[in-house]
């Protein structure tokens, strides 16, 4: 079949193009592109507890033997838990909390091994010991308490709305009638809008970053989820996005720990209380979420529920 020749030529041409693209990536500038936010030197330093012992905690003893902690986090939430695509390093308020806890448990925060865990897998990761604890916009609720333990809460979030800067019609959840509102598919904020504000035109995507992308390209009019997450986005592009209205739910964020490990949970509760008192908590907030312009709130009271 000589007639097929041009198709083959096309194939070859495109293959060459792909190879050139590959070859072109083999050379480049050192390091990573500049990012917004505080540089590493501006971040607060936490005092590492010397000679700290927690023999009752299996998680802690295992980590001590390993020589470092493994912490589950998120990778796509600006100023909470965000992974720099280029350097692979993590930053944000949740990461600062993880570092504080690590310092109090006697591990140098620099040695923490971060692991991105998808929301759907948080419980499993804690149950089968893939991670020592989890810090990533993890709302404490009774259903989850059956599966994992929660230290904290370390932050009080609430569902809110993110809109474009030039938006002046939406001032709160009551103005959502007929507006396109985006949230993560199936998640609690989505179901709340569906139940309480049925007139809103709901759009769902698997991640909030697609929602924010859609907000910026005028596909949707608002994005709704916990205000902490929204603040992070607003802080990245303050000229284009803003938060509106008062939070209309309560989402206490906790540190997820293996359910059986009460010793670790109480140790983290104590550590949290100490860092809130000595100002570390506020410093951590100011260099991360605080960049959105929202002043540091008072940390919520720690719920030191008894071992069960």
């Amino acid at each position, binding site marked *: 079949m000589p007639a097929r020749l041009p198709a083959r030529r096309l194939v070859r041409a495109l293959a060459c193009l792909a190879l050139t693209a590959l070859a072109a990536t083999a050379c480049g500038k050192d390091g990573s592109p500049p990012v917004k936010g505080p540089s590493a030197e501006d971040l607060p330093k936490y005092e590492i507890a010397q000679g700290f012992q927690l023999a009752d905690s299996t998680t802690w003893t295992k980590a001590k033997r390993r020589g470092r902690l493994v912490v589950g986090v998120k990778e796509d939430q600006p100023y909470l838990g965000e992974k720099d695509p280029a350097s692979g390093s993590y930053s944000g308020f949740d990461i600062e909390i993880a570092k504080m806890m690590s310092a109090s448990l006697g591990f140098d925060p620099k040695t923490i091994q971060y692991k991105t865990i998808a929301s759907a897998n948080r419980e499993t990761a804690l149950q089968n010991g893939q991670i020592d604890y989890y810090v990533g916009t993890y709302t404490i609720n009774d259903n989850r308490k059956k599966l994992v333990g929660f230290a904290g809460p370390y932050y009080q979030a609430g569902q809110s709305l993110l809109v474009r800067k030039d938006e002046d019609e939406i001032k709160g959840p009551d103005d959502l009638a007929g507006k396109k509102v985006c949230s993560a598919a199936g998640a609690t904020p*989505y179901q709340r809008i569906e139940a309480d504000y049925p007139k809103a035109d709901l759009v*769902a995507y698997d991640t909030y970053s697609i929602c924010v*992308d859609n907000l910026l390209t005028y596909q949707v009019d608002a994005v709704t989820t916990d205000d902490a997450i929204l603040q992070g986005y607003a802080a990245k592009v303050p000229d284009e996005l803003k938060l509106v209205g008062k939070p209309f739910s309560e989402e206490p964020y906790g540190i997820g720990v293996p359910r059986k490990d009460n010793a670790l949970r109480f140790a983290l509760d104590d550590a949290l209380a100490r860092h809130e008192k000595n100002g570390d908590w506020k410093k951590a907030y100011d260099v991360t979420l605080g960049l959105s312009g929202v002043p540091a709130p008072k940390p919520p009271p720690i719920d030191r529920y008894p071992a069960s």
Partner: protein
Amino acid sequence: MNVLTDNFSTYGKGFLGTVELTVYASLLALVLGFVMASFRVAPVGSFRVFGTVWVTVLRNTPLTLLFFAVLLGLPRFGLVLPFKVFAILALGCYTSAFICEALRSGINTVPKGQGEAARSLGMSFGQTLNNVVLPQAFRSVIPPVGSNLIALAKNSAIAGAFSVTELLGTYKTLNELGYSIIWTFVWIALGYLIITLTISAVFNFMEKRWGVAR
């Protein structure tokens, strides 16, 4: 078991979402596929090149990448459309490349002599096409077009992973509500089986009725 009875409306919505997506995307794929197939057998060179590029590129693009590109790329040109339309566009264009190939090979199965004979009888182009070539081609393309449409129905699950009103997407809601995840998936699987087996049955019937008897 009560996963289904408690959430019948959620499942129903998801099921209908998948059906709707499949039907519209199938129509788009059939129309586009037909257009591209006629381009690929046209006597004009640039049409053929266009058809070939369309087919080669789309057949070798991962559907997830295409979804990603359509879903987040087109809005960058100021296009504002609901997600469902984007999903139909992505699915329809992707499948059209496969349909095009099925139709083209169907036309190629018609022996050259048939067309020559028709023309020598004085038939016009339209007559040759309608009375000689297409009826024969149609018969031999039923099974491949059928399997492509089944593949489309199955691929619509990718749309569900991006957004919610689709069968696979229902698992997110039910998972958050704390239902047994295994049973949730059993019912989702059953939903897909119903859809794919229905398409299969329709095409088996068509095949029996009009299938190749040459």
